[in-house]
């Protein structure tokens, strides 16, 4: 340590672990895909995980260990986001990790996008992230510690495949959202980062593809020649939300097999 690194809260010990055990984590979109894989991975490393989804039955069978909780909520409504965080705080008295995975994807050609679709997509994908981050910021500021990850998409950079314009626009918003929170919360030792998944083998990822077009797309366009698995994205999220990500904030981490090389 020196006067230049004063305020650092992680150890320099080379054998230091991830510091996940005992942490209170909130993961949205936990019924399937990246959210579910992340909730289960953090629980396996000893976090007390609250898994949230609009689809309660979809969370049946999720493995959150002994201390995990599930909560059903429609996060497109900011009041519901506040309630999710409030009930978690009533139970755990703190919030260490927030991972925003909840999102929907609709493929609609631009000419057919109406205000209702716009609002539905923006509220579910972007406003929900804003409301969750805002609600989480309060306890994290008080604790002077915290980790937030928001999930964006390669669509934020390339406009989205197969008529997903509104999805892409919302995901572009997630990039700015994360940087804005990162700036405002940095003084409180809270990091806020973005994960940009590419083609991940989840129900949402495969939406609009046939099995053949899916395999061909990744063999042709991705240096790693394959789609990713949700568990692989979860492991990148683990890096960002753990002690190992302590000097990374405001960053957009691409987990896309080299699709963009931006």
């Amino acid at each position, binding site marked *: 340590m020196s006067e230049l*690194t004063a305020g*650092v809260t992680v150890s*320099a010990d080379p054998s*230091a672990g991830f510091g996940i055990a005992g942490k209170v984590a909130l993961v949205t979109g936990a019924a399937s895909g990246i959210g579910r894989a992340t909730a289960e991975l953090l629980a396996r490393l000893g976090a007390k995980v609250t898994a949230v989804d609009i689809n309660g039955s979809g969370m049946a069978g999720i493995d959150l260990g002994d201390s995990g909780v599930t909560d059903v909520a429609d996060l497109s409504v900011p009041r519901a986001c506040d309630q999710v965080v409030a009930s978690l705080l009533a139970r755990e008295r703190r919030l260490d990790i927030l991972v925003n995975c909840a999102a929907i994807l609709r493929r609609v050609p631009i000419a057919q996008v109406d205000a209702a679709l716009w609002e539905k997509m923006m509220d579910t994908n972007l406003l929900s992230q804003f409301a969750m981050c805002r609600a989480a910021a309060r306890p994290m500021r008080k604790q002077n510690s915290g980790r937030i990850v928001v999930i964006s998409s390669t669509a934020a950079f390339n406009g989205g495949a197969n008529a997903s314009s509104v999805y892409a626009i919302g995901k572009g918003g997630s990039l700015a959202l994360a940087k804005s929170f990162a*700036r405002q919360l940095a003084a409180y030792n809270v*990091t806020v980062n973005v994960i940009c998944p590419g083609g991940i083998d989840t129900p949402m990822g495969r939406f609009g593809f046939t099995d053949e077009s899916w395999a061909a797309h990744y063999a042709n366009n991705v240096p790693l020649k394959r789609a990713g698995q949700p568990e692989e994205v979860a*492991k990148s999220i683990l890096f960002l939300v753990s002690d190992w990500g302590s000097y990374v904030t405001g960053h957009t981490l691409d987990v896309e097999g080299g699709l963009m090389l931006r």
Partner: protein
Amino acid sequence: MNPELKILGVEGRVAIVTGAASGIGKSAAEILAAAGARVTAVDVNTDGVKAAVAGYAGSGHTAETIDLADLAACDALIQRTAKREGKLDILLNVAAVLRRIDVEEVDEAEWDRLMNVNLRSQYFLCRAAGEAMKPGKWGRIVNVSSGAGLVGGFVGATAYAITKAGIMTMTKSFAKDLGPHGITVNTLSPGSIDTPMQRTGMTKETLEAARSRIPLGRMGLAAECARAAVFLASDLSSYVTGHILAADGGFLMR
């Protein structure tokens, strides 16, 4: 070994780390060793690299003294290591030189020295390492660049910044080339990390000015940046390639 580190999947992996006598390279090599890798530590500073290796957890580590401006030595390093260990899994290109001098004073010798040590060595090490990794169908290459490569560098680090931008482009080229073989190639872009190199040619005032521009309000520890490098060298980053990972306390916000 800390059982938590098993998830990294580097136990039994063979790793080469350049610039291992100090700073980020020293710390990254220590972490890889602590996670069960067999590390070949490389530096131009013989005493420094020997002392570093003596401090590693586990056994089977090797210290090498090499001037990376010497291309034949780079190739020989990869061949020798792969032959001795039976394989090569991980290459961390951390070694670099930085001198802060006015742009008018960068002469041909200075230019060549920076280009050769910082950029050319990484290119030829990547190429040789890629060949050595292909049979195992698994590999991780991490090329350490710098935020200077994106924003032009600070306090007389112009030529240095150019080498660091070159590393980012080079990394993407190798990511495309080696991806089909299960080898990921990524750039780590450190911001202001409190290392001997960071302090080179800086005064108390310029260091404080650099610190005050960082959103997290502090410089990073070498260990913090090294963990980002080890993330890219591990199973945790299996679907990340061609990426520029910034470990910079929020400086770039990219």
